[in-house]
């Protein structure tokens, strides 16, 4: 299936595309070097994936699989810099975190990201105030710092997870 045409808009650092149902999206990889307490070669290359639906028509919108392919194509562009690491956080504050996580995992498998040379590591967080969420890091499987990246995520979980 073909991705929609997209364009990087350097002034705001986001990618833009529009679907056949007139829905407009902006995708940003937000610099998030403050998240992992790791060496600069890792921490400075962490970006949070933020997807925003910036305009949509009134009424119901049919499911549109091309959006997935477009986000995948945008991710490929983002990972042209091989050291880049994307972090994606699934909010569970409304109790729908597990469903979001399943959907996100489904995308990763469906779009064969592993076969295309990417690695995803997941971590569940259950903080002291009861807030739960999951965070995933995606990076190129040939990233020479992958062991340190995995360790940094483990350490982050150790710092924030409430012991049972």
């Amino acid at each position, binding site marked *: 299936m073909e991705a929609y045409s997209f364009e990087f808009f350097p002034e705001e650092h986001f990618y833009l595309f529009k679907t056949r149902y007139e829905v407009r999206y902006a995708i940003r990889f937000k610099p998030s070097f403050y*998240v992992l307490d790791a060496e600069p070669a890792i921490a400075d290359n962490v970006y949070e994936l*933020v997807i925003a639906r*910036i305009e949509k028509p009134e009424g119901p919108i049919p499911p549109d699989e091309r959006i997935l392919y477009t986000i995948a194509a945008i991710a490929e562009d983002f990972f042209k810099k091989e050291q880049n690491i994307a972090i994606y956080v699934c909010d569970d504050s409304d109790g729908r975190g597990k469903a979001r996580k399943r959907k996100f995992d489904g995308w990763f498998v469906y779009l064969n990201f592993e076969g295309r040379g990417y690695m995803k590591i997941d971590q569940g967080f259950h903080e*002291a105030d009861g807030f739960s969420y999951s965070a995933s890091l995606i990076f190129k499987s040939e990233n020479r710092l992958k062991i340190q990246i995995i360790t940094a995520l483990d350490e982050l979980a150790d710092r924030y997870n409430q012991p049972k």
Partner: protein
Amino acid sequence: MKTPEQKLTVPPKSLGRWLMESKRQTQKEMQEAYKNNPKIKEVFERLEAKTKGI
């Protein structure tokens, strides 16, 4: 809550809430940018023309 892109000197009490707020803030900023920056609409016009050209 403003979440500046700088190294945290003091870790937030709840990383999750902090990240969620940061994400919502970013989404809001993206929507604002779309409303206020005419160059973004130009990009969409270009994309539209490209789609029609296929």
